[in-house]
């Protein structure tokens, strides 16, 4: 789960990390009122969760009310890389002389957290990592002890941060690790951490991603998730149904159980010349209602021309799946899109007996089922 910039900044500020004065606004008058309270110049920043907002026209620096109105008018309501902008952050423009980078993330290869500091802030850090990896100081942290104070200092010195700034930057890094640890962060990042002409540091951007599996013990952040929800309508529907769902570009709808097998089904659609429309994992042990919900999801995607339904039951039972398919399809006078079903594993024979073959096409193997669904999709397109 990704927090919006304004949410992450609030979390950082509450923890004591210096951030610029800012206010959230959702209309032009609100932007002007906020700008006047903060004092010009201000930055107007689209609150959508995509990278490269500045280049895409989602961030403007304005000096006065006229410019503020013009910028607010163009940013609010714009489509930024597929996301509708309905809120902006109006923020004090920071007069900076230098930009640093600090972050904490989980190094999955090492299986432990890592803190990173660089003097090459303000640019895409992945490019820095690629071109000049030595410009990023890394310090692995033992999660049982947390970050020792010396480790924060070491990362800052290793990165070559000016010694007058070392104390303040170490302090920001220490707080950032503490936040990451307390709030079940997956990534916490400040890029850039601006250095002002007065020698102060201030977090000009803020990224805070939270481990979704830990939201049960982060109720405050889980509430923010509601607020942050945006983007694709079908992906929102999938959230309501509690499915693992990813929408893709193609026209063959895919439903299955288990992440690896669903991914494999996508790959097979591609392998046999089709294009997958989605990833939809019903999870383990799905009952009839959940199966019907999954069909509803995929039918609501207007790009979908055919559906392949592949279940290999371990804890999921073939008879439950068959019941769900019958129920979901029984309510239509005419089946909206052809459905190919393949059942294997637990109770697959019982499932086959229940399954109404007037409503679906049945195949015995995964390969055959995928090929049939791709054929159906091709027929619709033709």
């Amino acid at each position: 789960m990704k927090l919006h910039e304004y949410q992450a900044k609030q979390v950082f500020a509450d923890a004591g990390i210096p951030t610029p004065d800012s206010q959230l606004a959702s209309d032009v008058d609100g932007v002007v009122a906020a700008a006047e309270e903060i004092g010009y110049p201000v930055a107007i920043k689209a609150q959508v969760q995509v990278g490269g907002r500045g280049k895409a026209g989602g961030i403007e620096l304005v000096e006065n009310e006229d410019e503020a109105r013009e910028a607010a008018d163009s940013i609010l309501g714009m489509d930024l890389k597929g996301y509708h902008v309905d809120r902006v952050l109006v923020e004090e423009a920071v007069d900076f002389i230098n930009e640093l980078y600090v972050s904490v993330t989980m190094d999955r290869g090492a299986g432990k957290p890592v803190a990173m500091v660089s003097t090459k802030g303000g640019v895409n850090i992945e490019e820095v990592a690629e071109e000049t990896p030595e410009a990023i100081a890394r310090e692995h942290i033992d999660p049982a002890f947390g970050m020792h104070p010396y480790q924060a200092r070491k990362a800052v010195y290793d990165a070559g941060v000016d010694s007058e700034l070392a104390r303040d930057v170490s302090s920001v890094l220490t707080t950032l690790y503490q936040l990451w640890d307390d709030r079940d962060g997956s990534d916490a990042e400040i890029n850039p951490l601006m250095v002002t002409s007065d020698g102060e540091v201030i977090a000009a951007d803020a990224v805070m991603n939270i481990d979704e599996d830990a939201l049960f013990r982060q109720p405050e952040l889980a509430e923010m998730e509601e607020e942050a929800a945006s983007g694709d309508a079908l992906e929102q529907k999938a959230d309501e149904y509690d499915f693992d769902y990813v929408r893709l570009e193609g026209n063959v709808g895919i439903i299955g159980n288990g992440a690896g097998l669903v991914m494999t089904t996508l790959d097979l659609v591609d392998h046999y010349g089709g294009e997958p429309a989605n990833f939809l994992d019903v999870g383990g042990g799905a009952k009839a209602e959940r199966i019907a919900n999954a069909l509803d999801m995929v039918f609501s995607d207007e790009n979908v021309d055919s559906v392949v339904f592949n279940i290999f039951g371990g804890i999921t039972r073939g008879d439950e799946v068959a019941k769900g398919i019958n129920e979901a399809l029984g309510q239509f006078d005419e089946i909206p899109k052809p459905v190919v079903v393949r059942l294997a594993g637990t109770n697959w024979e019982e499932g086959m007996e229940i399954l109404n073959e007037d409503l679906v096409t049945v195949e015995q193997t995964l390969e055959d089922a995928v090929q049939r669904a791709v054929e159906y999709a091709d027929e619709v397109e033709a």
Partner: protein
Amino acid sequence: MSVLVDDDTRVVVQGITGGEGKFHAGQMIEYGTNVVAGAVPGKGGQEVHGVPVYDTVDEAVEEEDADASVIFVPPAFAGDAIFEALDTDLDLAVAITEGVPTQDMARVNKRLTETDTRLIGPNCPGLITPGEAKLGILPGNIFAEGDVGLVSRSGTLTYQVVDSLTNRGIGQTTAIGIGGDPIIGTDFVDALELFENDPDTKAIVMCGEIGGEDEEEAAAFIDEHVETPVAGFIAGRTAPPGKRMGHAGAIVSGSGTGTAESKINALNDAGVPVGDTPEEVADHIESFL
């Protein structure tokens, strides 16, 4: 005959009184697994499927001589349950639970460097030595005794590949589902090493997926240390970057690491053929035997 588990393995089920724990303990017993105890705080003295339940894993070890644990404990308490298993000096702990917070697993990971207990999972289907024992939720009826070792990050994909093998009369020594989370106990390299040292394992299937660099590390390990022929499968060739494909660990990062292409190339470079379909994996294995 097998790695890690056989019919001598004495199993304690942590969480045996819960819905999942109870159901699968029954399934394990039915398969022939030697389930000797359950461990659930506050439920000591009860019986489930005729198996005595204790309040702690320690008691289950004292009283019933358990040497392996299977963990069906809800995510919020799973980290603690894994620590309990590790601190009791069992030989093996298998964590089935899906959705364990990653930071909990980082702490577990640190403890693993200090103990001899082997952890499988979390978020995994467990492991099975066909005809002897299964520790987890795998459907026993699709497996058969034989000489192929299998290691996989995904549960249902394992079933798919095993089904292809068994239908051709190719059985398995042991199949291990290592789980789809970013931080896990036993990884591909550990499992490959076990199979390489098992004289009865004549070929190995390795099913990976997008995300992380475990498959690349496994490829390097195979190149250096594995004589047994290996065939591979990688799920997620069509996955777009930045989208988590179900498993917490299955994500191609924005910077392009963790792609299927990089994994397939690494395996091919190590002499491991990678099937485009699960049936093709079975074809490769058939050609090895």
